[in-house]
């Protein structure tokens, strides 16, 4: 007997599914579906984005038939359905709506297409369409053999990986180490080659990437506005999104954009570039939630259209919860220890006469810092860097504390949950990448020292 769980690949959206309904007078209707979600072992939910003939037909005659195709084997299955009910709110609706919102946001069509209802159907029968395929290619036989590994062994492997990742997270002693440890563990235990961790900035309106694997230098400091694209939507809705066959999903959004314009809607807004891989075929983003607050977003990508399965989502949800709590705890501990720290105003060493000159320019309008005419950093980390550089050059100080930064009104840190720790990590990493001659070296908890053998020249300007 075929179970709904056996058809998970068919519901991934790689190949479109088709629904057939029939009016009370016997007129059939056939159309493509955008999303199928397995609710449980005997029910599925179909996305409804526009009031249409399908909706009308099932109101008159609740029986329907859905055809789905396995993207790996091309095997077709027919599902006999009976319409049960529609949901316009609740966890199922939110989960399906978030995915559509992410695609709409990415393609500049936010608000033009959205989920109207999650229509729940009871599955009465599942039939495999026999005889529709010739023999499988040789390498596919191998894939299928791997897929037929006994489930208990696979489950034990997943639990072992979960245990290994958790164990490694426990060993981290600071925020930077925590984020790096997680991404290394995900790569080594789960082969997630492309991953990034983004934390909210001081305004709470953007996320900034603080750690990444698989993107080279471009991964650090990448910004995403909350509400924009896949990652921004996850941050806004606080729901996990798993997108398979990304190219097809975005094409679907663009198709809606074109027809919406034909029907009087505004032209689509600018598309938001996918952060990371230009040719990603599957993406998943998990909100990191601790005590009801968004601590960040973990995003992973793959070039495989079926790169992430349902169990990956559950796995990362568990890890994400632990990570969010750990991030919160690290920040609280850092603040508590900083309060007791004593700052010594150590003097910087005098640069030698032949020392290289680093020219920093601070643009007051947008708090942007350039070094030797190359963009370095902006916003709060930019203001912090400028304060430190000023003190270093004017006041001849080399050591600083997080506490004094928090108490400095000119920096404009929010009074609570200022994310200072994460801003300093970003600043440190940007310096490592763009200006390795200048280093922020941690001294003890809540204190750091600015080190350089170069002569620093500082200029302030009004416009960038």
């Amino acid at each position: 007997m075929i179970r709904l769980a056996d058809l998970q690949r068919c519901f991934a959206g790689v190949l479109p599914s088709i629904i057939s309904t029939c009016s009370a007078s016997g007129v059939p209707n056939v159309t493509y579906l955008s999303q199928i979600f397995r609710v449980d072992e005997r029910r599925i939910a179909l996305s409804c984005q526009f009031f249409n003939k399908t909706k009308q037909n099932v109101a008159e005659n609740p029986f329907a038939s859905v055809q789905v195709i396995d993207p790996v084997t091309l095997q077709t299955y027919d599902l006999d359905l009976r319409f049960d009910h529609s949901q316009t709110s609740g966890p199922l609706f939110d989960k399906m709506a978030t995915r559509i919102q992410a695609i709409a946001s990415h393609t500049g069509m936010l608000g033009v297409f959205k989920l109207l209802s999650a229509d729940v159907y009871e599955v009465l029968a599942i039939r495999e369409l026999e005889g529709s395929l010739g023999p499988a290619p040789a390498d596919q036989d191998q894939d299928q053999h791997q897929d037929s590994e006994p489930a208990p062994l696979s489950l034990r492997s997943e639990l072992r990986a979960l245990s290994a990742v958790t164990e490694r997270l426990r060993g981290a002693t600071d925020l930077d180490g925590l984020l790096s440890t997680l991404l290394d563990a995900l790569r080594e235990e789960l082969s997630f080659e492309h991953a990034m961790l983004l934390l909210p900035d001081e305004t709470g309106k953007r996320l900034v990437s603080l750690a990444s694997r698989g993107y080279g230098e471009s991964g650090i400091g990448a910004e995403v506005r909350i509400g924009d694209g896949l990652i921004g939507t996850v941050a806004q809705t606080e729901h996990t999104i798993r997108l398979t066959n990304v190219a097809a999903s975005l094409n679907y959004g663009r198709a809606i954009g074109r027809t919406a314009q034909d029907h009087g809607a505004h032209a689509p807004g600018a598309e938001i570039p996918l952060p990371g891989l230009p040719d990603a075929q599957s993406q998943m983003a998990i909100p990191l939630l601790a005590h009801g607050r968004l601590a960040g977003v973990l995003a992973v990508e793959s070039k495989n259209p079926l790169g992430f399965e349902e169990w990956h989502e559950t796995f990362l949800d568990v890890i994400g919860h632990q990570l969010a709590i750990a991030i919160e705890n690290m920040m609280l501990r850092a603040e508590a220890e900083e309060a007791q720290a004593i700052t010594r105003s150590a003097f910087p060493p005098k640069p030698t006469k032949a020392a290289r000159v680093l020219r920093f320019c601070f643009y007051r309008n947008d708090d942007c810092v350039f070094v030797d005419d190359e963009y370095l950093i902006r916003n709060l980390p930019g203001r912090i860097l400028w304060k430190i550089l000023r003190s270093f050059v004017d006041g001849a100080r080399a050591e600083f504390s997080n506490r004094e930064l928090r108490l400095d009104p000119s920096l404009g840190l929010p009074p609570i949950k200022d994310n200072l720790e994460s801003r300093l990590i970003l600043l440190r990493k940007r310096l490592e990448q763009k200006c390795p001659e200048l280093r922020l070296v941690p001294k003890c908890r809540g204190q750091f020292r600015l080190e350089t053998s170069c002569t620093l020249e500082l200029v302030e300007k009004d416009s960038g």
Partner: protein
Amino acid sequence: MAVEATSCTATVFLPAAGSALTLSNLRDNRQIALTFSRGIDHRSLQVKGQLIEISETTEAQRLLQDRYFTRFSEGLIFIGHQEKLLRRIRYFPSYALRFQLESMFDQTPGPGAGRIAGVSS
């Protein structure tokens, strides 16, 4: 699908494998609905009509199916599907379903989906 413009009839080919229920339904109420979609941009059309006859596909029609399948495969390969997998699809033996075209609907995803795109006179 092969269309005869003058008589406003069309013939569509249904693979014999797994066709029993569809054939039974067609013989029962003779109403037919078909949706076609272009993978590259999701442009989609639905046609509806009344069944005229069901027959076994002829060799000449098989050549038509081969040509159609080649073009269909090219479109799918262009958007990233694997040729070796597409070669598995068996569309023969099949039945030829000839029907009277009655109406056509734009089925492209979006607010206009379901709009009438043509009606037979």
